[in-house]
């Protein structure tokens, strides 16, 4: 089956760079499945799970806390704010961080919009983290 190059980078390192058949990425406006030959796009991502399909099976699941993706017919580059393989995602740590983020949101309620939105997006991302950590 046709493949494309998937690259997943976080500010601290290059996490993934290989040929895959399909990737499902959590775009801001809904999950998005990318197959080879996708039309060029730049999308913002929300907190969620990236699923990678290789050789007819799902091989990799990673949680990202948000970021961007650049899609072109032969490659997809994901710039993740932070990325953790689902297996390494700890439920207790995620819950603690969620609590922190919720506190920050409480404080940010009176702040101007972009700051409030950022705090809200963070809470959303961490809620997703907790729920996927629970399911895993």
């Amino acid at each position, binding site marked *: 089956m046709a493949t494309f190059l998937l690259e997943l980078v976080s500010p601290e390192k290059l996490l993934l760079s290989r040929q895959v058949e399909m990737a499902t990425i959590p775009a801001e406006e809904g999950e998005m499945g990318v197959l080879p030959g996708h039309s*060029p796009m*730049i999308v913002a991502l929300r907190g969620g799970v990236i699923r990678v399909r290789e050789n007819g099976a799902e091989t990799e699941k990673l949680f990202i806390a948000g970021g961007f993706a650049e899609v072109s017919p032969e490659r997809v580059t994901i710039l993740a704010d932070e990325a953790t393989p689902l297996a390494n995602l700890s439920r207790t740590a995620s819950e603690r961080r969620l609590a922190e983020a919720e506190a920050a949101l409480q404080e940010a309620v009176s702040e101007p919009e972009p700051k409030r939105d950022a705090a809200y997006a963070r809470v959303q991302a961490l809620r997703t983290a907790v729920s996927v950590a629970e399911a895993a």
Partner: protein
Amino acid sequence: MASLKDLRGRINSVKSTRKITQAMKMVAAAKLRRAQAQAEAARPYAQRMEAILASLGAAVASSPDAPRMLVGSGGDKVHLLVVVTADRGLAGPFNTQVGRLARARIRALEAEGKQVKLLTVGRKGATFLKREFASRFVGEVTYAGRKRIEFADAEAVAMQVAGLLEEGAFDVCSLIYNRFRNVISQIPTEQRLIPTPLPEGAVEAVGPQALYEYEPAEDQILATLLPRNLAIQIYRAILESTAGEHGARMTAMDNATRNAGEMINKLTLNYNRTRQANITRELIEIISGAEAV
């Protein structure tokens, strides 16, 4: 001439200094390797970010309501300098180099009648610049005692800069740091942060890359991408500076170790000469004493 006991004392003290500088050199070498690896690991993200920014920025920069972080406030009155140094000294001219460049910039800007504000990252830069420019400080960040600097730390600095921008506290922001060229050479560099310089090749990128579809719209993506880019630039500068710091310390300590070795040789020679002179003198005294009898 110093007595034998004094010389012995000095030789011993130089020897223990040499031990310390040698150990520091070793530690710096190990840390350098780690810092270089970290800087290396951060590079792919910065490169991809630059590519996206180039295609996006070219599309948006010309529009009148382009975000402030991209085009600046349009003014040129107030400059914010973010000065990145190390937290520790004993690294040769590493910190002074950056401090001097910053000082020269501040003087030049103020001579042009502009206002300067300072934000320092790293303890050494703060102490260096505080002596003369304490009134220009808007903040300082140190990582003293930290083992590893993470992206979140750079993000916090970027947030601070973004906050100041929102308040309209400055028009232009630049970063002053030591660029890591190789282990023995670090170059103090000034880099513009705001208005964001569009990466090279931005103009050509308008061609085929303008075909990108954006989701959500360009300006919304840009609004989240720009603060991120700011954080990345600062992160990169901090990492380069850390690598440079260890490189500089390694060379400085290597020199110090070598100098201590030379010093020990000189002192030992001196010590042996004095010892021999003493023996000769005693012999002459004994012989002339015997002859007199």
